[in-house]
């Protein structure tokens, strides 16, 4: 098993980050073209804890090198199952993801967390990512190691791109919310717009 871990900070409040997180793979993010679709499978609020639980299915374009495809069997898309837990009272988002494709041969389990940064809880958000990668191809230790190593390296490459892409979404989101507020302000100040709303 190999482990990938990193943490970083975003210069946005936890509220902004946790809202934009739902838009992370949308058109505002130009850095994740490999994510083709994100579908919500279920969504519930736990009546006792108030925790919002969401199940999603993420469809990705396969971009593994040929040698891995040859070992694991070629498929042009891969599926990821994700559950997320949002606790708005303690301001915490936890996301757990696992691969559904090739799961007999490779297990990738990722946990990500967003929490207010301890240094500036109202302005910054800390992001922690951890992934455990285990390959199970029989007794072929060499191949197992190569597959695990490749997957860890992919995580490293994607971590930088992931941050860049999410920064784009956060910026666009802030602009969109500001425009919305401005429109609302104008609407409240203008009789014509108020009537137009009716």
């Amino acid at each position, binding site marked *: 098993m190999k482990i990938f871990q990193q943490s970083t900070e975003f210069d946005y409040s936890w509220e902004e980050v946790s809202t934009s997180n739902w838009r992370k793979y949308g058109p505002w993010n130009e850095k994740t073209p490999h994510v083709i*679709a994100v579908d919500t499978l279920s969504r519930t609020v736990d009546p006792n804890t108030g*925790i919002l639980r969401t199940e999603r299915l993420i469809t990705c374009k396969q971009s593994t090198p040929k040698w891995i495809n040859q070992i694991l069997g070629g498929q042009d898309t891969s*599926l990821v199952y994700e559950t997320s*837990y949002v606790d708005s009272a303690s301001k915490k988002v936890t996301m*757990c993801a696992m691969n559904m494709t090739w799961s007999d041969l490779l297990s990738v389990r990722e946990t990500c967390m967003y929490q207010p940064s301890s240094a500036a809880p109202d302005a910054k958000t800390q992001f922690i990512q951890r992934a455990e990668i285990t390959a199970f191809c029989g007794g072929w230790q060499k191949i197992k190691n190569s597959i695990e190593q490749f997957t860890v390296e992919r995580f490293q490459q994607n971590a930088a791109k992931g941050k860049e892409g999410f920064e784009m979404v956060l910026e666009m989101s802030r602009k969109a919310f500001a425009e919305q507020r401005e429109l609302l302000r104008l609407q409240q100040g203008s009789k014509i717009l108020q009537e137009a709303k009716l």
Partner: protein
Amino acid sequence: MSASLAPECNEVKERYDNCFLKWYSEKFLRGTATSDECEPLFKQYEQCLSKALKARGIDTMLKEAREDNRENDAEHMRPKR
């Protein structure tokens, strides 16, 4: 927002996603959510999506993934002490 894996569900998915995002930022985060007004839209989207998942055999893969995910639920749904 992102597309659906089933293009025929894109339209209803977009309506649901927009409804959810509004509810999330305006009600859930502020702790004032009393009901889920997006439920009817979700039901429509779910109906469309579940057909596509079944047709592609993804529904059986999902069963396994859900089994494997039980420990995450146990860990992250538990009440605060």
